[in-house]
């Protein structure tokens, strides 16, 4: 195979193919998004067995294997459980657009819930972010029923 070694190693490019998907949000996520869009408010759901409140709302409590029908309104405020500031961009497969860097992903313990919830923080300097700090959401004026109807979270003033 001497000749092969002398030639280029080719690759086959798939091209810019897109594959559209139409995922059903389901009852629970639909309610979650509608509350965000119409009422600027976050909701979770409560398990009738273990009484834990989870966000995002989902149909079945993973621990108890029981359907959760109780929707709980949340204040939207919470404490910072953890965060990271990302310095690398990648092409978001949903938008096809490279995310601008740096950006801060955070796990937020929303008041009244028993898990954490991931979203962005406005602040991107790690020195200015403290685990445990109190946070509140900043809502977009024009909302469409999407996770990013909340632009990001910012510190609650004076806390």
């Amino acid at each position, binding site marked *: 195979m001497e000749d092969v070694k002398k030639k280029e190693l080719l690759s*086959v490019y798939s091209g810019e193919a897109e594959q559209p998907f139409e995922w*059903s*949000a*389901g009852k629970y*996520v639909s309610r979650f998004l509608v509350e965000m869009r119409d009422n600027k408010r976050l909701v979770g759901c409560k398990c009738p067995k273990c009484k834990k409140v989870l966000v995002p709302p989902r149909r079945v409590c*993973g621990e108890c*294997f029981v359907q959760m029908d109780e929707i709980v309104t949340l204040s939207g405020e919470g404490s910072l459980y953890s965060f990271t500031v990302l310095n690398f961009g990648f092409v978001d497969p949903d938008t096809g657009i490279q995310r601008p860097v740096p950006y801060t992903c955070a796990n937020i313990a929303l008041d009244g819930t028993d898990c954490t919830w991931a979203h962005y923080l406005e602040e991107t300097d790690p020195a200015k972010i403290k685990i445990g700090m109190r946070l509140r959401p900043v809502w977009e004026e024009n909302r469409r029923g999407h996770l990013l109807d909340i632009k990001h979270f910012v510190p609650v003033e004076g806390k």
Partner: protein
Amino acid sequence: MDKVGIVGVGQTKYERKKVGETFFDMIYEVTVKALDDAGLTIDDIDNVITVSNDFWDGRTISSMAVQDACGSRHKDISTVEGDGVYGAFYGAMRVLSGSFGTTLVVAHNKCSQSRMNQITNAMFDPIYTRALGLDAITSSAMQARAYMDAFGITAEQFARVSVKNHKNAKNNPLAQIALDLTVEDVLKSRLLADPLRLLDASPITDGAAAVIWANEAAARKAKKAPVWMKGVGHMSDAYHLGDRDLARSPALVGAAGKAYAMAGIDDPLKQLDVAEIYDAFSYMELMWYEGLGFCPEGGGGKLMDAGVTQMGGDLPVNPSGGCLSANAVLVAGLARLIECVLQVRGEAAGRQVKDCSTALAHGINGPCGQSHCVMVMGK
């Protein structure tokens, strides 16, 4: 082989588009149904096997979407990406290993969500074949033509499969498409890719299914008598279509041979009471008759014409309506297995095969039925 049997089954209604439901909703539905059917609780389930496919779901690690829906938290869990019968086989092996008394196997698919031709095009080799635009329909059409040429099978004989299975579906409340057809209707339906017409092809389907395996000890807790796995085999042919004799299915012969040997079957036509086989396209049912040894090579059309595989015939095939009536890819093989269980239990009201004690379930993977999995179930 130790005994392992199915003690619970559940299926959704198969539909063209389940708009209001997520994968999670469908899996929760069938898990609850299977548990109710078995008279067991989620705590009686020792481990879980899920069946899903990243391309159809539009999610890598597609198993992640359904875990809580099948009660898998704090349990061993794994995922087979392939037809449901393969997943069911893995679930049975986990019981046979002695590590678990029960396995819950669930499968889901929402074929309505994206583009079937793009998804099935992705099974072709990206270097040599994909750019040709082959998909499940066009590649199967080539196989159908090769089969016709090799053995003189006719479009009418294909059509008879469609007539039979769509009519059988009338007795299956969960089937998607039940129709009273004539051979003419099939031959006049829209041409998809020569020689395959619309009514030769399975529909686009959303659905999910679940089965619960149990060993002898765990089965005692279940409501109903288990339907035992008597024999099983799987095997894959070559990959590139040009490396295969598309008119024949040696991998099916191999898979069935293993299953039959384990089950003590040397005359399938006599010893099987019913068969549920993967008719993704009408011609496939005829080809699989041959691979399964129901007739000699090339004899699929003749067997169909003789009426042997009709309801009331010597070996009814696809009393459920088969894949032609509902084909949630991946789920469909599990649906075949579930129908076998219902038949052996005597619970297939309206389409019950008389004195049914031994049933055969069959599923396929890959282009043109490259890989086959055969399971023989019985009392």
